[in-house]
């Protein structure tokens, strides 16, 4: 029995190269969708493929079963290694890349070592993708096209139904850290327009019966507006009341009050 020559397997070389490419892309800023695609592979495919290759020698199990194990193992490697590592370090982007790269390369190395011990006649054959009837390919592309159309309808339908909800937000919040002292306080006032069109709002802040401030706010669809106001500290007897008016009518109201009297 002759052992295989110590030449790297093509599939393992490709997996290791893709993993290293993932590292390079992760270090480079703004590589866009290419980076995303390669890093998806680094999470979901490469560690699992390499680990399955290390665990099962070529042709030792059927292809479908190998596929199932590869994906399940890949997901398990991510979950289990993260669980161990997070005991010592915070899981962040750098750690994820390093972890998955290390898992992939170590598994590739182990798989290569096992393959080198194979008898020559068990050498992994050159795998060629199976051919498919062109008509079948056309039909499957048609199916994908129709499914994409269905998805597009669903997305637009969801967005349209969300856009059908016409409303506006009003908020008034005490600004922590910007307080002027025991007598005065700073508050943050904001409006969000979800009316589905450009709308002109009027805004009025009152303390007791005294009008503290007025604004006219013109907001485009989806736009938000925010301002801050310094007023005497709101109290139970003199709360700060903010009223949002649309078309001259009271539309929303919010208020800040002080601590309850004992």
């Amino acid at each position: 029995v002759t052992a295989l020559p110590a030449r790297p397997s093509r599939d393992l070389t490709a997996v290791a190269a893709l993993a290293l490419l993932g590292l390079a892309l992760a270090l480079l800023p703004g590589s866009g969708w290419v980076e995303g695609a390669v890093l998806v592979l680094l999470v979901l495919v490469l560690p699992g493929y390499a680990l399955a290759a290390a665990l099962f020698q070529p042709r030792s199990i059927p292809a479908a079963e190998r596929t199932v194990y590869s994906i399940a193992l890949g997901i398990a490697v991510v979950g289990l290694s993260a669980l161990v590592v997070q005991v010592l370090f915070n899981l962040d982007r750098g750690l994820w890349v390093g972890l998955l790269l290390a898992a992939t390369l170590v598994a590739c190395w182990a798989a290569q070592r096992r393959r080198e011990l194979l008898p020559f006649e068990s050498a992994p054959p050159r795998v060629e993708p199976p051919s498919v009837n062109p008509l079948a390919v056309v039909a499957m592309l048609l199916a994908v096209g129709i499914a994409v159309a269905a998805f597009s309808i669903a997305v637009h339908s969801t967005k349209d139904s969300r856009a059908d909800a016409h409303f506006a937000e009003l908020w008034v919040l005490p600004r922590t850290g910007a307080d002027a002292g025991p007598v005065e306080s700073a508050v943050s006032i904001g409006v969000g327009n979800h009316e589905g069109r450009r709308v002109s709002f009027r805004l009025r802040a009152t303390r007791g019966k005294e009008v503290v401030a007025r604004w006219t706010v013109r907001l485009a669809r989806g736009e938000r507006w925010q301002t801050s106001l310094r007023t005497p500290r709101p109290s139970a007897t003199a709360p700060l009341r903010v009223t949002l008016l649309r078309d001259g009518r009271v539309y929303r109201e919010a208020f800040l009050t002080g601590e309850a009297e004992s």
Partner: protein
Amino acid sequence: VRGVGAGQPINARSAAERRTAQEERRRRRTAQPEQDGADARQRLRLGAMPVLAVAAALGLLLVALGNDAARDSSSTLQQGLFWVGLVLIYAPIAFRLISSAPGREERIALVLTLATALFAVKLLRSPTGFTRFDELGWWRATHDVLSTGGAFSHNPIVVSTSGFPGLSTVTAALSELSGLSVFHAGLLIIGIARVVLTLALFLFLERTIGSARAAGIGVAVYACNPSFLYFDAQFGYESLGLMLAIVLLLATLRWSDRSERRRPEALPGTVGVLVVLSLMLVITHHMTTLAALLFCAVWTAAILVLNRGRRDDYTSEWLAGPGLPTALIGVGALLWFALVAGGVTLTELGGVFSGMLDSLLNLITGGSGSKQLFSGSGQSEPMAARALVVASVIPPLVAIALGVLKMWQEEEDDPLRVSLAGVAVLYPVTLGLRITLASSETSQRASEFVFIGVSFLAATLIAEWDWTRRSLRRLGGLLAITGVATITFLGGFIIGELQATRQPGPYLVGAEDRSITSEGIAAARFASAHLPPRSRILADRTNATLLGSYGELDPVFGRYADISIPRVLFGGEFDRADRRVVHGQSLAYVVVDRRLSRELPLIGYYVESDEEGAFERRRPIAIESLRKFESVPGVSKVYSNGPISIYDTSALLRRPP
């Protein structure tokens, strides 16, 4: 029922023939269905699959159009489009899988098409973001992994995520590295898990029954389980756990084969898969871990009982067969339960099981009545749906009865097959659990496990049916079985999903996905941008879910000093007990959704299932109860978008009640 090629009734077979048939099945199980890396370039024989994929895609188009129309109203036509779409996806593929014509490659392609298309149905239901309670809970868990770098953050929505971080860490890794949102990363992982689950189930049944045809039929039957279409396609730990469990069973099957264990090229791999997947399953989902453990233990016990006295079987080898995964899962689960997840598991499952037992005991002792079938709190099923549900539970029951009878007549002594039949027999028990509201949840959650046994028995029966009759009668038989399977599929979906949540539609109170609206999402986005993270809040279930996920706040449930926390929302006035709750629970905000006063909650409760009046209310909450916060001294109204207001109660915390 006749045996394959035997041409005589099964009960007329001799013991020797039965033995031969069982040996043949065992031989086929150990045979390798295919080998990877064939030297020659092969043509993939997909048969009718591409055409059926087009049919399934057209089905998806109809589902999308039905959903689109249903967003505004729910007429018969809109529902019709949806249901016809489902039939168009399922029935043609089921028909082809049942027929004897396709080859193995086509069958695999068909089951993968079915899995993908049915997953897409769930995707079409909510294509732009998660809307289900569990999904938003897992969104929060994943978001916490991304923001804290740790895997065990407390999750106020789905408490058990902190004990089972498998899904959240994997999703966080994918999201962090690829730049995908948590939603898209989650969809990708669950979609892949769904496809792998289906393929693994096919391979498992193929090796168990010894027939690719039976395996295809088995997958088609498994898709009929009430949780398959929506619940197990959601972004939740069970969706991932099920996949891991089925792949683990597939590896266990390989490990149980003595000849496999003697092959040095596959032995370490099988052990490695068993170890890694057992551990991953343990950290991913409690119920699936428990189900896998119980099944492997039963399988081991069946080996010990049925193979007693046979020296040539694997009973003589310690940890051979399912013994090893039983030990791995058992030890792993025990340690994980003791060191990490015991508390959250008891909190979640303890509530479910104790509720089930309480309701059953109450039913037996006359303390309460049974659940009214076909009705949620606010909606009841139309007559056609009721008929479909009744019709859908009959075929599995018949398949179980005939399958068990057949095994009995054949004196079946294969431990795995006997164990699978034992799982199937639990199906009628789970149906019985649907007589009370509390035990319905247990029944629902058990369906994805017991249907593995049901699919095995049904597939065995259908595949071994005598199909050698004349073509016209054979076609009639195929159509009839496809029709029955389709009814079971549709009925299963009706059983598993509330009428209101099967399709999108206008806002409803307390109706899970149907209660998620732009106003709720806007309030959650506001909270995320402007309120201190992890502030403790009181809100109804829908807003608590949104604010607890997208809003990054911590909703509070349960009781404080024996006072039900939700009473703060329901009382006519804000009294001393409410103050005690707010103070004692450090509630910084109370969120009020005035729409709650419009109607009764569809799921039977506003905040949580054990709140006062849950499932018993006859009238919705009064608007005055929701308005009372406008005049509570010390309480500020910091946000309003019309229906939803957020009240700041933090000033109440500085003074004892």
